[in-house]
């Protein structure tokens, strides 16, 4: 038995080493003397890798040059970098926002990037502004695009309608209103979907946010007036997510506040965002929490298969859970705990790459630092490989962002300490160690 265990362990180790060898090492993307956080990533139809992130010049005199004085680092910018050689090297990062320090820098209200079918790079981010209706600070929803491969970005467009009230005593954080925690998606026709959590109708303590959406039908040249997407029961601090599948269905992940619970939901549009299905709660046990979870819901889909992952405190143990549907969302599986050995797991992201579903997240397995982990499925989420820690430089790694390629590989970006780093990842063809079925609730 001991000999068999030794052989099995050696084989597993060999497979793990091969997995690492098949993947490129991590690459520093952000400037080494900057404080970079919360990257997002999108692949172009030409194979280019396009990244955005929140970036802060560490020189103290530059803090709060906007004079907005709100709770998050006021002087932050949005930076962009691109690779056209498969991630071996990246362009020198450059600032996207026109005015220095105008980006609302909150790490869990990530900027977003997407690339359209014609190569247009779309970027969506929260920015500091002053509401002309009230002369009060606000955080607004801004969109910009590049039609020259990221060399330059157009004058940004404000996509939210400004509120007519001052809800500073309700919204807090030094702003009178927020149009933030947004999501971005582009479909095959070039329609651009921006959506965010909106406080414009919050009037008293205890009120929750709404979700609003603004759509462009002309590749981001202009946007239609924003419309309400979800009513005033959206968890105000849990970032929205958006996913467009191969059939141009638009999925929106959010967290709904209802009767003291804050649970992950999915809504879908099959008509270009004109109408949506009712939000469907996808969790097992509900999470009763009167607080700010700061937790998004990641979604991916392919035909009748819909996949989601989310953090919940409603299950025991708390952590990241995965669910899937094989009937187009009519029913969802029992939640599967993604990382049983973790002391704490969070920030899941899903992507489809070829015939493989990849799930990434950050976790701690001991008293050390956060590291990135992954597992994958080749049977539409029915079973997964065991969690694998990604090989990368030492230090705290968190907030992964991913984009899958048709060849099955994944491009990954993350926040590493105060840097943004990236790597290419390919899961091995062989299954590593044990697999875990998602058909029953597993722990």
């Amino acid at each position, binding site marked *: 038995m001991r000999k068999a265990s030794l052989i099995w362990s050696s084989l597993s180790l060999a497979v793990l080493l091969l997995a690492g060898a098949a993947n490129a090492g991590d690459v520093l993307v952000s400037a080494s003397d900057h404080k970079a956080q919360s990257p997002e990533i999108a692949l172009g139809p030409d194979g280019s890798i396009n990244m955005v992130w929140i970036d802060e010049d560490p020189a103290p005199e530059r*803090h709060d040059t906007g004079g907005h004085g709100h709770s998050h680092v006021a002087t932050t910018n949005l930076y962009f970098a691109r690779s056209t050689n498969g991630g071996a090297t990246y362009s020198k990062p450059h600032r996207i926002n026109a005015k220095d320090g105008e980006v609302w820098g909150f790490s869990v209200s990530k900027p977003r990037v997407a690339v359209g079918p014609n190569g247009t790079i779309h970027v969506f981010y929260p920015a500091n502004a002053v509401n002309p209706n009230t002369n009060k600070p606000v955080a607004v929803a801004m969109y910009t695009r590049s039609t020259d491969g990221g060399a330059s970005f157009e004058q940004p467009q404000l996509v939210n309608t400004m509120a007519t009230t001052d809800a500073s005593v309700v919204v807090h954080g030094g702003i009178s209103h927020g149009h933030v925690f947004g999501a971005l998606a582009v479909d095959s026709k070039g329609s651009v979907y921006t959506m965010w959590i909106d406080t414009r109708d919050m009037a008293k303590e205890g009120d929750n946010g709404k979700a609003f959406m603004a759509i462009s039908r002309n590749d981001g040249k202009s946007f239609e007036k924003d419309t309400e997407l979800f009513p005033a029961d959206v968890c105000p601090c849990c970032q929205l997510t958006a996913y467009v599948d191969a059939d141009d269905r638009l999925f929106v992940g959010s967290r709904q506040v209802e009767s003291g619970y804050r649970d992950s939901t999915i809504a879908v549009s099959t008509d270009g965002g004109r109408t949506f299905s009712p939000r469907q709660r996808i969790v097992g046990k509900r999470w009763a929490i009167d607080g700010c979870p700061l937790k998004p819901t990641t979604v991916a889909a392919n035909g009748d298969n819909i996949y989601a992952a989310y953090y919940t405190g409603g299950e025991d143990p708390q952590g990241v859970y995965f669910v899937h549907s094989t009937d187009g969302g009519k029913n969802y599986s029992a939640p599967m705990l993604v990382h049983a050995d973790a002391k704490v797991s969070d920030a899941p992201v899903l992507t489809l790459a070829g015939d493989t579903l990849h799930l990434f997240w950050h976790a701690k397995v001991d008293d050390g630092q956060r590291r990135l982990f992954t597992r994958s499925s080749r049977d539409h989420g029915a079973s997964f490989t065991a969690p694998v820690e990604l090989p990368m430089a030492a230090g705290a790694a968190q907030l992964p962002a991913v984009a899958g390629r048709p060849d099955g590989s994944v491009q990954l970006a993350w926040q590493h300490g105060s840097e943004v780093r990236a790597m290419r990842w390919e899961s091995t063809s062989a299954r590593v160690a044990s697999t875990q079925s998602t058909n029953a609730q597993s722990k």
Partner: protein
Amino acid sequence: MTLGKLTVVVSCVFAAVGVWAATPVANKPADKAVVNAIAAAPTSPASPAQLRNILEREHGNVVILNLWGTWCAPCLREIPELVRLQQELAPLRVSLVGVAMDEASSIDSMVEPFRKKYFPAFRTYARNSPDMDSMVSVVDTAWNEILPTTYILDREGKVARKIQGVKTYDEFRTIVTKIANAG
């Protein structure tokens, strides 16, 4: 007023004070207006190492360590109650230490004005760390970034209880009093 009547009045006053002083701390109502008017020291930045030192200096006290943020509306509801509770339980050697998850660079522009306006008696620091997790790892390496989170530390500095989400004054009082009376 005659000397005799004055003597009676003064005696009654002293008797009342004596009864009040003899009343167990847990049974005395706390004056919300008074306790929140007692100004605490201004917000200071604290790195993880500094927070560790702050908490080590509190050994011997039961510490209510409250993690909050100026953007976190639920957090703001419970802070005045925690201030009131600490004032009530101070004779049991209970301390309250807040840590704002706002970055230290926003202390002057945001955190301190906010604290002075809404809860001037709240003793709080602002994190001076690359991220929230590295700050909270001083007491909890498995923190899940939910706010508010409150840790009740025993007199040796160990986490006796972890509370997430808003709780009522009475709920906090029950938890803290039990730990404080345990020694």
